[in-house]
């Protein structure tokens, strides 16, 4: 990272981040807003907590084959989530992984070990690999471009991948008549918006068949539109269409437990999941414990946009007191010349020049 970058003294957000402004004390407008809206946010969180528990209890009384789907990447957060939902809440879980063609071998092994150990049914879905690779290629080479609303939170490659994962999870849940999809987003991923969505619709992802003037941006559509526009229906079919539902259309509730009912403590998470045989992969970067293409996506994004794609999440964790600044800065480091990077490029049939690194 460039040493000349100015950072918020509180949350480490850099001056290259979209819409940032600093006050005379060197504190950014995001921190000021966070501080000022703290009380309101805390009350939202409290409401969220109560209703979360209620929804989980309601689901359990339905006595279906499965109470929920857990999007399970094999990474640390979703492994911990799986454990907690099984052990603390005694839910009947169907774990689900979308194989994006870049899952670390260790992550695959972790998945096997953990679902066996926890006696959880498991499904892996593998979309057409050439289509995934095409999507990844086009986002890395900026044929598919996402707007600031999305790139302020994560890299376009992660946007495209997460959109596909969520769509597959929702469709699987519908097919199997499962009413909740759990996602292991950290408290720094989509905070506020997810609380609000939940309080409006009982789902952290917004779906509605009526329109209010305070509706959130249609993120679902914003993820899909650029893919349709560049790659056509073949790729678009892997995504959901819109947050606005058509007649007769419905989706299960999406819940992010780290936003309400599970405390997020990274040290504790690592400790806990090790007890059931989870081993940290040595082939992923500092921001991922399951995905091999993450390094490449992060590096390319940094060059293209001038800030780290995880910085919004990391800074939110710093503001929340979940990370200290030094640790957070460490998470930003990207290894520029490793084999994983090369292998990812080779798999996508791209050169370093193609992606500008």
């Amino acid at each position: 990272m460039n040493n000349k970058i100015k950072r918020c003294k509180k949350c480490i957000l850099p001056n290259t981040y979209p819409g940032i402004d600093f006050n005379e004390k060197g504190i950014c407008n995001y921190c000021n807003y966070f501080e000022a809206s703290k009380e309101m946010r805390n009350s939202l969180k409290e409401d969220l907590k109560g209703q979360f528990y209620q929804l989980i209890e309601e689901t359990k009384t339905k006595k279906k084959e499965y109470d929920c789907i857990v999007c399970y990447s094999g990474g640390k957060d979703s492994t911990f989530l799986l454990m907690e939902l099984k052990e603390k809440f005694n839910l009947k879980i169907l774990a689900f992984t979308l194989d994006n063609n870049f899952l670390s071998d260790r992550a695959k092994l972790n998945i096997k070990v953990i679902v066996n150990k926890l006696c959880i049914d498991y499904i892996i879905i593998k979309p057409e690999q050439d289509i995934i690779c095409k999507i990844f290629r086009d986002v890395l080479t900026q044929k598919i471009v996402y707007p600031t609303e999305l790139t302020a939170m994560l890299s376009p490659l992660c946007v495209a991948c997460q959109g596909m994962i969520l769509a597959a999870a929702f469709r699987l849940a519908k097919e199997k008549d499962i009413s909740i999809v759990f996602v292991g987003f950290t408290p720094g991923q989509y905070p506020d918006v997810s609380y609000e969505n939940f309080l409006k619709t009982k789902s952290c992802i917004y779906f509605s068949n009526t329109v209010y003037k305070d509706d959130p941006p249609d993120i679902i559509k914003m993820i899909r539109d650029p893919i349709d526009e560049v790659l056509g229906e073949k790729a678009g079919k892997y995504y959901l269409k819109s947050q606005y539902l058509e007649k007769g259309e419905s989706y299960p509730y999406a819940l992010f437990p780290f936003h309400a009912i599970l405390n997020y403590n990274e040290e504790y998470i690592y400790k806990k999941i090790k007890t059931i045989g989870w081993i940290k992969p040595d082939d992923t970067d500092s921001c991922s414990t399951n995905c091999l293409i993450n390094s490449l996506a992060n590096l390319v994004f940094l060059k293209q946009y001038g800030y780290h794609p995880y910085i919004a999440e990391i800074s939110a964790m710093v503001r929340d007191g979940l990370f200290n600044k030094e640790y957070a800065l460490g998470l930003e480091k990207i290894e520029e010349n490793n084999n994983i990077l090369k292998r990812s490029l080779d798999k996508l049939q791209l050169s370093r020049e193609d992606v500008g690194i």
Partner: protein
Amino acid sequence: MNLLTYRRSRKDAWKYPGTPILFFKFLFKKVNEAAAILKYPSLPSPYSLVPLISQALGLGMPMMGSGKSPYSMISYFTRLNENIFLKNNSGLAYHQRRVMVDEIYDMIAPYLLNEQEEYIELLICARHKEALKNFSTDEITEFRGILKDKFKILHNLFLKTKFKGGHFAHIAHYGYPEDLYREESFLREFDAQALKLWRDKSYPIVTEIYIDNIDAPNKAIWGWYIFMPHYTKEIFKSSKLRENKLLQAGKLARSLGAKFAGMAGLVASFSKGGNFLAENIKGIGFTTGHAFTIANIYDITKSIIKGVSLDISKSKVAIVGAAGSIGSGVSKLIAVNNVKEILLVDMALASSRDKLVKLEYVLKKINKNIAIKLSTTVDDVVNYDILIVATNAITSIIRSRHLKKGAIIIDDSFPKNVSRSIIRERDDIILLEGGVAQFLHKHNVYVARNMPDLLELSISKLVSCKQAYGCLCETFILAAYGHKGNYGLGDADPKLAKDIWQKGQIVGVTSATFQNYGFAIEKSRIQKVKDIISCRS
């Protein structure tokens, strides 16, 4: 008395529909305080304030990265403090807050049109008819008084905030009943009488938009999408409704401070090429959007001809809807090239026939070498290489049987004149969307409220893909150039098409990639048509 004690002491606070007046007063007191801290920021219109009011209520929470958006509280947060937020003890449940925001939003159009009294009566007689059915005359009078007080509260704030107006408005209408019923879901519960009253008297639905980072005289532009609250068929049916609602939308555009208004969907057609609006509403200009649209269709036509290696001098082009503004405009642009033949098609009406004859004469003057044929039936297009379709027909009129192998169809109609199923039935033709244009990705687009994609105004696609239909592009380009007054009225003018296209090139607005129904056209399809054409020659 604070809100909590008020809530306890007044159990009947929610007696009347809408938000109790004390909550209203309380909220606006806070908004006034915040606005005062910000020294009453210079915003374009009351619609700019609503997202900020929502956020103070804990709704529409701003997203990370939104620090530059005029609609995000984060933009103002070097100066504001926690006092502007409505705290937990406000007593307003989530859905009540949403109702409140909607209520404020809906009051703005009648306020700007100075029709508060009419709006109040509309609420009493239609919107809240059912809820008020057991109320006495005195109670209804009291309710009327409450609504008047709400307008006064709104007025006091708006008076202090000196709204600066904007650059443009864009008038549209809803496409289908389900679109309108999704926006105004309360209509589902109306009886026939209330529905009729609402239909006749309701007010436009508006969202404000801000675009910056533009390379043009205006680096940033403000404007409003103004939706007539009716769907296509409804407007088609009644000329009286059509005229009233066009005038209402045009007047609202003027009240908001737009310098001119563009037109989407069938607004240009409904307003007789914009002339009805221009003649009846002074102090604001109008433009149909057709100049950019025909330039864009022409550009797409040239690109696809090149893409499939079609020899233009051997090509036969059919223009369906040729007597219309877009059809005639495109014909004139195409006639400049030495195409083999142009077929001008328009359906049946005698007036269309006259128009076609006149158009034939004009085209002959542009290029005497082209064979021109006239037709009043779409069945005559079967042997044509390129079909450009731009009619007002409300159903699909082009069928698979009308298309020869290797045909290229550019459909600029709304509703679409070529059925989507044709794409699945026939892999030997290319069906393209007419008029989709591409902005630059560096153009930042901010909208005051999200709306589902409607008709030709695909708002999320504008934000995400930076794409819009030609009519909207014309509006944006003119706004970026600081245009005032009328621009393109009546039939699309090729000279204006040239002018707006050149300006668009400078701003960075060009044709989008080949697509239809939002999907990219597969390379394999283009190759297949290319092969067919190559075998043909």
